[in-house]
């Protein structure tokens, strides 16, 4: 899989804003990742971040997810994640997978936002 970080802003789907991330989300890319996603944060907006193509999620990347989770929650929305196994590992280690909303697929995540 390609390690190069890239972020696709896939636009609004219902009441959710969808991002697709791939490659490494690490110290190099996490600040940029966070900045782009924060721009999409609006009151009561849900954020779906599809990380199915993420090859590595470092502490900095997890930190960005922490910020996004807190921000969406404080604005009455939700952060929903779709994870690759590489992205899931650090979240599991930190026992964070119980506190973040993780869905099996992008469709499931979007559907959950409609519910």
């Amino acid at each position, binding site marked *: 899989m390609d390690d190069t970080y890239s972020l696709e802003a896939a636009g609004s789907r219902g009441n959710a804003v969808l991002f697709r991330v791939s490659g490494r989300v690490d110290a190099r890319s*996490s600040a940029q990742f966070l900045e782009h996603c924060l721009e999409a944060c609006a009151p009561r907006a849900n954020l779906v971040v599809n990380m199915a193509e993420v090859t590595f999620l470092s502490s900095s990347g*997890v930190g960005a997810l922490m910020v996004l989770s807190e921000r969406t929650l404080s604005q009455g929305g939700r952060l929903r994640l779709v994870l690759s196994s590489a992205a899931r590992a650090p979240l599991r*280690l930190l026992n964070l997978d119980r506190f973040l909303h993780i869905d099996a697929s992008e469709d499931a995540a979007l559907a959950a936002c409609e519910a």
Partner: protein
Amino acid sequence: MSSMSDRDADRPAALDRCAEPEPAGGSPDGFALAERHESSLLSLFELSNALGVLPGPYEIAQLALLNLMGHFGTSQAALWLLSDDGSNDAVPLRGFGVRDALLRALGSALERYAVEAFANSNAPIVLIELSGEDRAPEAALAADAGLAVVAPAAVQGDRVGLLAVGRRMSGEPYQPIDLEHIAAAAGMVGVALQSARNYHRMQEANRELRQINDQLREADDLRAAFVRNVSHELRTPVAILVGYLAMLDATDLTPEQRKRVAVLEAQCQRLDLLMQNLLDFATYARERLSLQEEEGNVAPVLRDYAEARRPGILQAPREFAVTIAPALPRVRFDRRRLVQVVDALVDNAVKFTPVGSRIGLTAGVVPGDASSGVAIEVTDNGPGIERAHLATVFEPFRQIDGSMTRSAGGLGLGLALVKQIVERMGGTLEVESEVGVGTTFRVVLPGA
């Protein structure tokens, strides 16, 4: 957070591999501990790598906080920069999950707290576990805002910043290994902030130097403009003088009077040349000299010049020996400028040698890489130039101290100007001198 309530809903997969289930919020067992150690190292490694290339304090803060929040699974963290003027001001660099106004207040409070709390040790303090007397109001304020641990970002004992991380989303307490991690990260952040601060100071110093340099250049421009104006103003009366002297010369004069008029005329021309040099220099410094270059043989130009110059030199008798080699290679030069150069060098030789000295003008071939060039030398057997002064003879307004100079007069512009003209023609100007033996100035023009 609503999701916090279903903490025990399902077991994390990583812990399912453990023999003894770990109660949530308790200490991790051996396997998980090893995994955490590895994660801690990876996280610190990432932080240290990234901090090595970050330019500004804001970026340092952003990265360090994301790294720590990610490592500990908290949505709150903040970094304050301490001012280095001893005022104990803590300026928020970046904060996540804490409102801006609170962030500022927390910085000041925590720094007040830090003065005593970190007086003897820089070990991180778990604010949420403080009780009794240890629970200072400042620490309580931070703990109530959700910040669990505070650590000084210090370099060799000096606090540069304060770092705080929030409660963990999992509800797990901060273990000793976690505090070690925070201490290590805070140390890196301290070093990074310090070098950012040093870098900033260096930038500031550079900027000041640039400013001073600009001011000097401006002053130089002003000086050049002043010199230009003055030269113009001075040349006008000299031109009028020359005109009236010519008219006087045309009248019926006694031989004695005619001789005196000739002296006056010579001195006027000299004055005009000085002025011309001054004007050229001022113009050059500002706009560079204009050149009208041609390709050809310098020999006729030099011969004509020597013929015209000879009578002047012989007035206060000095020997003037001119040697021009046959078949000089062709070079590119500006006829008028070349005469100006040679004249300045000869003038210089006359000025700095006593009556009776020998002045030589020679032109010869110098072998070049592609084609041969021409070397024009002006030599004298005068007092010579001391080694210490040789390096500065081409600097403007520079004349060697001493009685000879004062009696010689001049503005000290000649050689600086000469060098600039020669270099504009693509040539080089060198000087060799030995005290008590004499001096040689060598102009080398490359072959065309």
